[in-house]
């Protein structure tokens, strides 16, 4: 006897990027098991193949605007642009990871594990950016986070790395649990887990000021603030950024923010849009606090990764402004800023990674002292990245901030625009300190720069550790992102076009 049932209509073309990533995960694991354990180039190529095809398929599908998998996911401009940035960042991280000393253990390459985790995390990000159901949101959030906990603790030989993994796990799980408890209350108040149905219950059902919904919104805000490191839920950020292997830090600093902000926007503007007057003031306060705390915390940091961690808190505050104004202009400004943020941060993290492999000064500010005379290419890339993060004209950061301020003024949050400007002025204090170290100090004592066989990483293998060839190849992608950060600072139009579908599609869903 056959039983018929209504199978959900699955649009395979639209979920093909996710299928490509799944296939990539399996392929990477198989290659690393079947191939020789030391074959890092083969593993990385397989991983790049998976990511590349996912990127291609995503670009192919990027003008779609449709519900997927019975409404659990939605592919629209927001999902596509966030996914393209995340996959791009992952490609960069895979390249950066080839020579990462932390990925060698007792002479064995662990690139198979790293790349499989990287692809899993990216899969979570792509799903998170398109989630439009609380269940899908939670699964995608955890699919993104759990591999990142492992990746942060990847250098098992280094105490800092393990500590950063454990800290990230505890704080990340606290954030996830809070998101989950908030989701439970939103479901309790509205009777549905679907974003559209929640919006209908809040809007037409008049539940916007229901206490259950209020509790839910508060918990969701706190949980997501943990994930995107918004003050006062940011304390973990500098520690985790500093302790994790630099490749991993670069990836999670950028890609996690992109994906988490994408779902933050979709959840708050689509599902909780009718209750906007309840959450807008709270988010505005968080944004202002985050901008001030992040910028003040970064002053006086001597570790570059910690500095970028604090700067990430401040940048998260800027981005939150684009979210809370709940307008098309705001979402476009947010996506523009996220894309720019990816370019400038990747440039900074790869310079740190390269210097970490060349000298034994780790990620401290003295590792880049005198870089201007010694390695002008690296020096220029880091300078561009610092100027862009500070938002100076002629870099992508300038237009990013300009659009955010425009959105703030447009959404009657002019005072937040002023806070952004004040924050940027404070931030010059530490970004310029890095630039001064690059160009105005002399290089540290050559003895400490010597590429000693045993660097700060114990348990690593001498052969895999210091590979000048690896870092020389890295100059090419580094030059590309740095050049893009300047190019879009002079001609922002291509990036504006890239971002503008996001806001249009999202606001069309809100109706």
């Amino acid at each position: 006897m056959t039983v018929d049932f209504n199978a959900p209509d699955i649009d395979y073309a639209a979920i093909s990027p996710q299928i490509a990533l799944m296939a990539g995960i399996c392929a990477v694991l198989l290659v690393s098991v079947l191939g020789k354990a030391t074959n890092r180039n083969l593993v990385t190529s397989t991983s790049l193949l998976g990511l590349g095809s996912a990127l291609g398929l995503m670009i192919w599908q990027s003008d779609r605007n449709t519900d997927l998998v019975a409404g659990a996911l939605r592919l629209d401009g927001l999902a596509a642009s966030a996914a393209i940035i995340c996959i791009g960042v992952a490609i960069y991280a895979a390249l950066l990871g080839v020579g990462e000393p932390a990925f060698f253990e007792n002479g064995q390459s662990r690139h198979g594990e790293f790349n499989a985790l990287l692809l899993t995390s990216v899969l979570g990000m792509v799903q998170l950016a398109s989630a439009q159901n609380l269940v899908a949101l939670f699964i995608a959030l955890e699919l993104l986070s759990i591999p990142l906990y492992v990746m942060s603790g990847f250098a098992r030989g280094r105490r800092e790395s393990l500590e950063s993994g454990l800290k990230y796990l505890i704080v990340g799980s606290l954030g996830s649990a809070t998101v989950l408890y908030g989701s439970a209350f939103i479901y309790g108040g509205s009777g549905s887990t679907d974003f559209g149905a929640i919006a209908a219950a809040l809007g037409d059902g008049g539940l916007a000021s229901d206490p259950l919904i209020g509790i839910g919104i508060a918990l969701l805000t706190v949980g997501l603030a943990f994930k995107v490191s918004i003050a006062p839920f940011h304390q973990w950020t500098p520690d985790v950024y500093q302790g994790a292997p630099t490749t991993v830090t670069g990836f999670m600093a950028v890609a996690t923010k992109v994906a988490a902000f994408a779902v933050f926007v979709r959840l708050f503007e689509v599902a909780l849009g009718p209750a906007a007057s309840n959450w807008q003031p709270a988010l505005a306060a968080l944004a202002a606090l985050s901008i001030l705390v992040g910028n003040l915390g970064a002053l006086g940091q001597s570790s570059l990764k910690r500095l970028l961690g604090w700067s990430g808190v401040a940048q998260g505050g800027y981005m939150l402004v684009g979210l809370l104004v709940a307008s098309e202009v705001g979402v476009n400004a947010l996506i523009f800023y996220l894309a720019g943020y990816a370019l400038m941060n990747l440039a900074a993290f790869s310079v740190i990674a390269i210097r970490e492999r060349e000298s034994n000064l780790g990620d401290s500010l003295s590792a880049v002292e005198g870089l201007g005379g010694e390695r002008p290419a690296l020096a220029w890339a880091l300078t561009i990245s610092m100027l862009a993060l500070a938002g100076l004209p002629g870099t992508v950061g300038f237009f990013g901030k300009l659009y955010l301020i425009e959105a703030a003024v447009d959404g009657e949050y002019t005072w937040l625009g002023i806070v952004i400007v004040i924050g940027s002025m404070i931030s010059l204090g530490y970004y310029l300190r890095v630039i001064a170290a690059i160009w105005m100090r002399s290089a540290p004592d050559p003895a400490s720069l010597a590429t000693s066989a045993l660097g700060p990483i114990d348990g690593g293998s001498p052969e895999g550790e210091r590979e000048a060839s690896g870092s020389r190849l890295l100059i090419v992608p580094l030059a590309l992102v740095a050049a893009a950060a300047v190019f879009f600072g002079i001609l922002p139009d291509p990036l504006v076009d890239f971002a503008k579908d996001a806001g249009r599609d999202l606001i069309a869903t809100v109706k």
Partner: protein
Amino acid sequence: MSTEWYLVLSALLFSTGAVGVLIRRSPLVILLCLELMLNSSNLALLAFSRAHGNADGQVFALVVMVVAACEVVVGLGLIVAMYRRNLPLDVDEARVLRK
């Protein structure tokens, strides 16, 4: 029976878990407290699911159980790795990264 009692219990469990994560020093106990937070959410989801008479919440709770297991696996893995290196299993001692 009213849903409120379940919600009060779940709120108590959630707060117990959250306070435990913040004040306990052993990473193992912290993991237990995280589990408590996730399970308090499950209780709330099931209560709401019965109240609304639809199964969304129950499906959600099943998903949460799977995810919680994954999280614990990673947490225990990290704790074992720290133990093997003879690092103190105490989150207050884990402060190499503080400056």
